[in-house]
């Protein structure tokens, strides 16, 4: 018996796709992904209309979606992150119905509870056997963890594995079991490896970024949380990685044995694991080759599902046990609300990803950002979009000072006593504006192009069209 189907064309018909259905994709192939595009091309050629796509993220490589939206093949979009190329078009209003933005924890929760039921899930898998046991750890297009694909595989009505590396049955080191899979299709290339993972992620050489990272490490050091059993998550941006490096050096120097690192795993987190800073890495996504190699070879480096990582409706999730998370921001307002969905002109170029989940769960949530970017202050009176609510954000670290949320008075006192440059967030805004000048407000339109759905299911904010 075999679940192999010879073409996408065939498998789409076999799955019984109809106009108006919802299909899903994961984003582990990131900006090297081929699968969304070839599947959507086929669906479009076959003449289907009004399809809703639920993709955990959409990257610039998915720009053909714009064409599919314009010709009404696609009339609904649900994502956790959207890159700037597609984002710009969405911001101009090409979709009639608002995009639904969820978080990395909210998406699997809504799939599992039936809020966004998936008719057909297309699971890009770097390696699979003919029955659908598949994995991201092996193959020429290896991407490491398949964390975001599990909810799709387990709950979609039909599940199609799309691979470019078919192996003999059984693939015993599988991530997703054959028990969930209906069909397997083998294509030439599921993606371009250089776009899937970075060869190496590098810490920033930008001196301002290094300064921020240095302050961030000192905040962690004096937070009272840096002791045996410490757990940590950081982003993949340059300054975030520098903080991981400084933290590793500090933990080794002070002989601190942490418990776990999570994320978004890069070679810097792998370094921390191998240096003994953590017992384990819980990996929901791999960002570079070293992370992929580590998850394949090191039993202490574990793949976890997105639900396990951050779902608010799981019996418990890892983020709820997290000590410290370092995150970025395009904007933050004087109430510590953070915007990661749009740029300063209101164009969509991001999304929560795990931002709001980790901020809600972590004991210490730190935003690390330069005081201004290209003449625009990072601190504003009101963010253009609330991605993560201020009551879950504790500290803003910039190269010119550190602001602590007034809700965390004890933390603020601790950090002040340690001699760190603690300033009021309003003063940071004034300082930025004394250098940049005061910007004119951005005017946006009246059409809602996106809804930001918080992890608890409530509508956190709406994004209006750009003019």
């Amino acid at each position, binding site marked *: 018996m075999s679940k192999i189907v010879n073409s996408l064309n065939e498998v789409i018909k076999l799955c019984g796709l109809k106009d108006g259905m919802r299909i899903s994709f994961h984003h582990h192939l990131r900006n090297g992904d081929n699968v969304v595009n070839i599947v959507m091309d086929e669906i479009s050629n076959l003449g289907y209309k009004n399809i809703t796509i639920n993709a955990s993220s959409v990257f610039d490589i998915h720009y053909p979606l714009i064409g599919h939206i314009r010709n009404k093949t696609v009339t609904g979009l649900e994502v956790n992150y959207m890159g700037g190329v597609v984002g710009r078009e969405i911001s101009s209003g090409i979709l009639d119905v608002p995009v639904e933005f969820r978080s990395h924890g909210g998406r699997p929760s809504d799939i599992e509870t039936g809020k966004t039921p998936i008719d057909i899930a297309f699971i890009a898998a770097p390696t699979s056997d003919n029955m659908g046991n598949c994995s991201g750890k092996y193959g020429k297009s290896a991407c490491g963890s398949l964390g975001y694909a599990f909810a799709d595989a387990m709950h979609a009505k039909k599940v199609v594995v799309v691979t470019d590396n078919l192996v003999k049955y059984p693939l015993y080191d599988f991530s997703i079991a054959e028990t969930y899979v209906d069909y397997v299709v083998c294509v030439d290339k599921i993606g371009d490896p250089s776009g899937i993972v970075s060869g190496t992620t590098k810490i920033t050489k930008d001196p301002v970024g290094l300064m921020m990272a240095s302050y961030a490490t000192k905040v962690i050091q004096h937070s009272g949380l840096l002791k045996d059993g410490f757990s940590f998550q950081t982003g993949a941006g340059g300054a975030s990685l520098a903080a991981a490096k400084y933290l590793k050096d500090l933990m080794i120097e002070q002989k601190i044995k942490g418990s776990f690192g999570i994320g978004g795993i890069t070679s810097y987190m792998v370094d921390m694991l191998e240096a003994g800073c953590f017992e384990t890495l819980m990996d929901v996504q791999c960002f570079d080759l070293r992370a992929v190699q580590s998850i394949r070879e090191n039993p202490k480096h574990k793949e976890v599902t997105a639900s396990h990582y951050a779902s608010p409706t799981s019996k418990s999730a890892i983020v709820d046990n997290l000590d410290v998370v370092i995150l970025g921001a395009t904007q933050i307002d004087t109430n510590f609300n953070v915007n990661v969905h749009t740029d*300063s*002109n209101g164009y969509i170029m991001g999304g929560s990803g795990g931002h709001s989940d980790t901020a809600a769960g972590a004991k210490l949530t730190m935003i690390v950002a330069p005081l201004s*970017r*290209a*003449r*625009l202050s990072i601190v504003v009176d009101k963010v253009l979009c609330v991605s993560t609510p201020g009551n879950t954000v504790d500290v803003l670290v910039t190269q010119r000072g550190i602001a602590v949320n007034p809700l965390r008075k004890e933390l603020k006192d601790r950090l002040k006593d340690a001699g760190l440059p603690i300033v009021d967030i309003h003063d940071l805004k004034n300082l930025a504006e004394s*250098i*940049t*000048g005061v*910007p*004119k407000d*951005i*005017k946006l339109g009246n059409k809602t192009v996106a809804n930001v759905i918080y992890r608890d299911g409530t509508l956190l904010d709406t994004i209006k069209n750009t003019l």
Partner: protein
Amino acid sequence: MKIKNIAVAGTLESNDIYVQVEPNENGINLELESIVYSQFGEEIERTVREVLHDFDVKNITIRLKDRGAVECAIRARVETALKRAKGVDE
């Protein structure tokens, strides 16, 4: 003062502004491109016109490509371009 030559100053690097000036007989012709046009376009134009006024330049074509330069950098680059155009009295 009179602008005699074409001159450029500044760079297209982040936080800088690239300025190109040319002689012109009919007043001030100002063309501005900026990555923060919505937020600071008016402000940048005002600053440039002030510098032109300070140096008593009445006829000029000035093209600017801004990458988020702050006011003192804009002033510096415009002043440099004017001086290079050899039209400005010291």
